[in-house]
């Protein structure tokens, strides 16, 4: 029953075929005549897609209402950038260090206190954490450059070309998504589905909310931090402005609009918002209005986000095993998200 045939079959599912051709297209894109600007934005999209996906991991899948993920991103970016600049190390060495440092810091400083709390309190504490970071960056301005930002961060390669940046970002994105699939389909993912469906039963069967939460936090911090590090070395400069409200709104909208609790949603959201945002820069302040309108309309009419639209068009792109006709999800697109259902005692 575990023969090659059975293992090959799922690979040939239409869903996977679509994914594979999209992947091939992404690989071939620079050869198909994408210009500098498009490649630049695409590379950023990959980075943001990872950040959004892992934000969605904590919030959409695990129901931990974290609002501090931009903080994780900044820690990774700064750690790697400062190490590479001050110690003259290659970014290839400092990026993993940055990611690990983010994981350690976030798990100890945020994860341990936060996971004793519930719902909206987690949101508040993580937000306060991210908002305290610009001050910390300023206090350590000797290394971080303070509000001026860090300039001249060593790039991934000497004279990094746009198409190289694109491929590095794409490769990172692929690895991060693969890891995300493992996490979601693996033990932590299973644990959180169980906790959400029936917390007492899950606990009785040995599921440890705290431990699984910490694990998800650590994984999320690792990849978000890594994304931050990559971002720093792709752009060559960073500043505390990355912790500003605009960036926060952008990234949070990516997974919220894309479809919380889905794997593809945040990626689509990242693509649409990053590209939309850049192309709408010519439209001035209208950009803001359109973003706000998109969010409001999505919530009111397509609560499952873009994935709901996709799911409506074709069932196979959604999550076939856990989606389907689940009465608790909207058109099988979105999984419940912890924030509300958890804090609300009386509904």
């Amino acid at each position, binding site marked *: 029953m575990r023969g090659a045939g059975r293992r090959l079959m799922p690979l040939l599912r239409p869903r996977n075929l679509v994914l594979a051709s999209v992947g091939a297209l992404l690989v071939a894109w620079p050869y198909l005549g994408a210009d500098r600007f498009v490649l630049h934005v695409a590379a950023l999209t990959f980075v943001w897609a990872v950040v959004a996906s892992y934000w969605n991991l904590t919030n959409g899948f695990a129901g931990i209402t974290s609002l501090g993920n931009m903080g994780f991103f900044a820690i990774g970016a700064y750690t790697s950038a400062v190490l590479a600049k001050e110690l003259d190390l290659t970014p290839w060495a400092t990026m993993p260090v940055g990611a690990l440092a983010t994981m350690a810091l976030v798990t100890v400083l945020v994860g341990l206190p936060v996971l004793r709390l519930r719902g909206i309190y987690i949101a508040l504490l993580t937000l*306060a954490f991210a908002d305290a970071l610009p001050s910390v960056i300023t206090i350590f301005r000797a290394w971080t450059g303070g509000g001026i930002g860090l300039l001249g961060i060593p790039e991934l390669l000497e004279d990094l070309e746009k198409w190289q940046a694109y491929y590095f970002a794409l490769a990172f994105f692929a690895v991060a998504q693969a890891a995300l699939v493992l996490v979601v389909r693996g033990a932590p993912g299973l644990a959180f589905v169980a906790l959400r469906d029936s917390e007492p039963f899950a606990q009785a069967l040995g599921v440890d909310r705290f431990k699984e939460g910490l694990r998800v936090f650590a994984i999320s911090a690792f990849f978000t931090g890594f994304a931050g590090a990559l971002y720093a070395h792709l752009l060559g400069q960073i500043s505390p402005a990355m912790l500003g409200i605009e960036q926060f709104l952008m990234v949070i909208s990516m997974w919220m609009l894309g479809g919380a609790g889905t794997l593809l949603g945040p990626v689509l959201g990242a693509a649409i918002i990053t590209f939309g945002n850049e192309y709408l820069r010519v439209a001035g302040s209208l950009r803001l*209005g359109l973003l706000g309108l*998109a*969010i409001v309309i999505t*919530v009111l009419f397509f609560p499952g986000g873009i994935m709901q639209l996709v799911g409506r068009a074709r069932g196979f792109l959604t999550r076939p095993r856990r989606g389907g006709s689940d009465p608790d999800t909207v058109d099988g697109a979105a999984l419940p998200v912890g924030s509300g259902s958890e804090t609300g*005692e*009386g509904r």
Partner: protein
Amino acid sequence: MDAFLNSLASGLIVGSLYAIMAMGLTILYGVSHVFNFAHGHVAVVAAYLVWFAAVRLGLALPVGVAAALLVMVVLALATYWGAIRGLLRRSEWGFGTLLFTLGLAILAEYALLELFGPRVKSVPAVLPGSVRLWFGRLALNDLFLITASVVLMVLVGAFLKRTLTGQAMRAVAQSLPGAQVVGIDIDRIYGATFIFAFVMTGLSGVLLGTKTYMTPHIGWEWMIKGFVIVAFGGLGSVPGAIVAAFLLGVVEALVTLYLGAIWIWPAWLVTFIVALWLRPQGILGGRST
């Protein structure tokens, strides 16, 4: 000593600003469990309306405030009946309302930018002038802000305790099923809560506009500050929010005096973590959510 007293006074002023920022937010959350991300923007909208009435149209300040609050009532009803009511009926209501109010905030910023432009505006001080005390001078407007926050707290407390609507709101806050059992019309109470919270928030925006000035962008700052204070004091607890606001205000002033202004946020965070460790429901938050 004078420096200390002076800083303490600054702390109280800032504290009163924070208390005003937090009040509408905590009431709305306490009763309906809707966390209003557009809180800061509701306040800014009211402040802009008052500016428009008082400065642009040259109306008397109380007239402007009354008109702005009237608009707040309309906005509250539109928000609740037009959107929130439907969202609350979904299983994903917590997430839905959060996202909705977030979108609303962005839209409000855009609308303000289009209508009033990006330049900084201010609401005229309610009480111009200042008064001399032994350690320094205090602006009358600042004293007014401190008084107003305390008076508002008392009024809110009285409203919740004495009036029928207030009692029903408290009942809903304590137990939604219980309130339904005794025949409270939830829609009516939620509608009333939204009106109450929006009016309070609008009022807070007007008060803040006299001191911190406003741009279309500043709502985020007000929201985040209010957010932290409300959590600190215990979501849904009005006295808790007030205590937290003054506490943080004084901490902020003393940190500025002895460490430097740049340490304010880190100090907040540490205070916050310690407080939550000791009391996970916030300082005075009775309910564990």
